C-alpha cells in the first residue's frame, strides 16, 4: 500500500484496464514480439545443427541420412523462414546494442551500423570460404 494518499475521495474505486492482447495494440510491440519470437527459431536451427553433429559421430551413413532429410521440402521451407528470422534477429540485436553499451560520445547509429557491417562482412567471408572449399 502506498504511503501516498490520493486526494480523490473516490480513489478506492479505481478501474484497471486489462492487459490481454497488449502486444497487438501497437506496431512497436508487435515488432518486439517478433524479435523475441525469432530467438525460438534460432534455437530450433541450432538444435538441427547439433543433431547433425550427433549423427556425424555415428558414422558416414548416419550423417548422409541426416543430410538427405535436410533436402526435404519441409526442411527447405524451415530453413528459408529461419534465414529471414535470423537476419531480422541480427538486425534487432545491433539495433538495441547502443542501449546496452555505456554512454558513448558517438552517434548510436554508428554503433548499430558498425555492428551490422561487421556481421555482413563476416557472413560474406564465411560464405566465400565455403564456396571456395566446396568440391
Amino acid at each position: 500500500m502506498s504511503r501516498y494518499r490520493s486526494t480523490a475521495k473516490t480513489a478506492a474505486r479505481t478501474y484497471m484496464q486489462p492487459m490481454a492482447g497488449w502486444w497487438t495494440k501497437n506496431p512497436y510491440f508487435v515488432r518486439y514480439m517478433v524479435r523475441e519470437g525469432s530467438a525460438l527459431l534460432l534455437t530450433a536451427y541450432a538444435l538441427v545443427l547439433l543433431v547433425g553433429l550427433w549423427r556425424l559421430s555415428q558414422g558416414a551413413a548416419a550423417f548422409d541420412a541426416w543430410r538427405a532429410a535436410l533436402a526435404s521440402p519441409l526442411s527447405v521451407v524451415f530453413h528459408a523462414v529461419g534465414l529471414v528470422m535470423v537476419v531480422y534477429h541480427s538486425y534487432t540485436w545491433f539495433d538495441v546494442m547502443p542501449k546496452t553499451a555505456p554512454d558513448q560520445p558517438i552517434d548510436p547509429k554508428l554503433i548499430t551500423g558498425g555492428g551490422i557491417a561487421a556481421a555482413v562482412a563476416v557472413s560474406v567471408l564465411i560464405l566465400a570460404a565455403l564456396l571456395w572449399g566446396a568440391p
Partner: protein
Amino acid sequence: MPIDTTTRTIEIECLRYDPQTDTEPHFSSYQVPFSDDMSVLEGLQYIKDQLDGSLTFRWSCRMAICGSCGQEVNGVPVLSCHTFLRDYFPHKLRIEPLNNFPIIRDLVIDQNDFLDKLESVKPYLVTKLEKPLAAGPHLQTPQQLNRYYAYSQCINCLLCYAACPQYGLNSDFTGPAALALLHRYNADSRDQGWQVRAEVINADAGVWGCTLVGYCSEVCPKAVDPAHAINQNKVNSAMDFFGVLKLMNKGGTE
C-alpha cells in the same frame, strides 16, 4: 509558414469513467472546432468549457514541463499540451488515460505507485561525509555534468510507464523513470550512493525486470532515454554481483 487560423472541426473521443456510477469505462464523442495552433489539451479544455463540464483531466503548465497532462492519444502516450490537433485531422482522436495505472476518473490516473518507486531509488545526492559549507561549492567538469545531465531532465510525466508492457504485466517492476533517476544520481561525481541503491537496482524488479522493449525511450518527451539508463546498468549490476565494482572502488557508501 503562417499559422492557419481558419477553424475546422475534429472529432475527439474521450474515455469516461465515473467511479460512483460506472463499473467500467465507456467512450463519449465530441465535435471540437479547432485552429492550427490548438493543442490536444486545448481541445480537452474546449470540451470542458463548452460541451461537458464533467470531463476530468490533469494539466498545469501547458508547456511540456510540469508532466501532468500525459494521455494516450490513439494508443500512443503523449503530453497533450505538446501534441497538436492539426496533426490528426481529418481523422478523429481517441483519448484515454495513461496505460498501466488505475483510473481514478475519466482521464485521471492514480500515480501513487510511481511515487513509492521514486522514493525507493533515493533520488538525491548520497555522500559519505557532509561537506562543510566553508569548503565552498562542489565543482564539476563539463564531462562530469554530461554523465548524468540527460537523465536529470525527467519531468515525471509517466509516459514511459504507460509505454512499458513489463510494468503493465507486473507493477512490482521499478520501471523506466525511477530507474533512470537512480542512474542519474549514481552517475553523478558528487554522489557515493551506489551501495544504498544497490538493493533496488540489483533486484529482479530492478534493472533485470527490463526486457528492452525500448518503447519508453521512444515516447519520452524529454529525451531521457530510460531504456539506455536501465540497460547499461545491467553490466554494472553484474559487476556488483561479482564484486568487481568494489575492486574498481566504485562501491561508494556502505
